[in-house]
């Protein structure tokens, strides 16, 4: 069975970005607050486009937001 899943640092980046709210980030990239919450908690993997938009919103490269975690259990 394939192992690994995508982890992210959105919570940390939001904190460093002046405690940006999930709703605010969602508004910037065109998704709902609930979708940001789902991405942040690792329950939903965003599309490549949304991932780039999130990185752009924080003004950082993509791999600073999302990482491939080899040992994490795969999302169902």
């Amino acid at each position, binding site marked *: 069975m394939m192992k690994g899943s995508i982890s992210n640092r959105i919570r940390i980046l939001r904190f460093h970005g002046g405690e940006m709210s999930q709703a605010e980030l969602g508004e910037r990239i*065109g*998704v*709902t607050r*609930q*979708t940001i*919450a*789902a991405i942040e*908690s690792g*329950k*939903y993997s*965003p*599309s490549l486009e*949304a991932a780039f938009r999130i990185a752009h919103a924080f003004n950082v490269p993509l791999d600073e937001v999302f990482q491939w975690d080899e040992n994490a259990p795969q*999302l*169902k």
Partner: protein
Amino acid sequence: MLRIIDIMFAIVYIVVVDGGTKMPYREKTAWLSLLAMVVTFGPYFALVATRALPSEPSPNLRQLGLFAVTAIVEMLILGVGHLYLRHRSTQEARMPLDERDQVIMRRSLSSAYYVLIAGMILVGCVMPFNSSGWSIINAALFMIIAAEVVHYGVVVFSYRRQA
């Protein structure tokens, strides 16, 4: 019957009061649709299945009347419910579906499609050998409602587990 009413009140409470601020608008509308179907088509199929309808000289009219009342009540519940939910979350209701909403929608529709296809095969290819008339029509209607329940059920389930 009292247990069913308890469950319905619990759902209404979750949708309208408790989850009012946290629950996504689209999940609330899915709960509403599920509730409307249970409240209206539940009794309809219970009446039809138990043949509780008195025999009359015009059974077709009786069946059509029952179906019309059921459909009108469902539309009323959905209409009033949607207006209420829209009023409570105006901004969210105006937002177009985002990518996660679309994924959930696709997943729920594909699940419902299999139920509908299986049901239609059963109704169209098997039932004509041993049933006729209103039995077939009601079975087809049941399969459509079952597919709708699966559709909204998967929507609710997906939003609940945030996937």
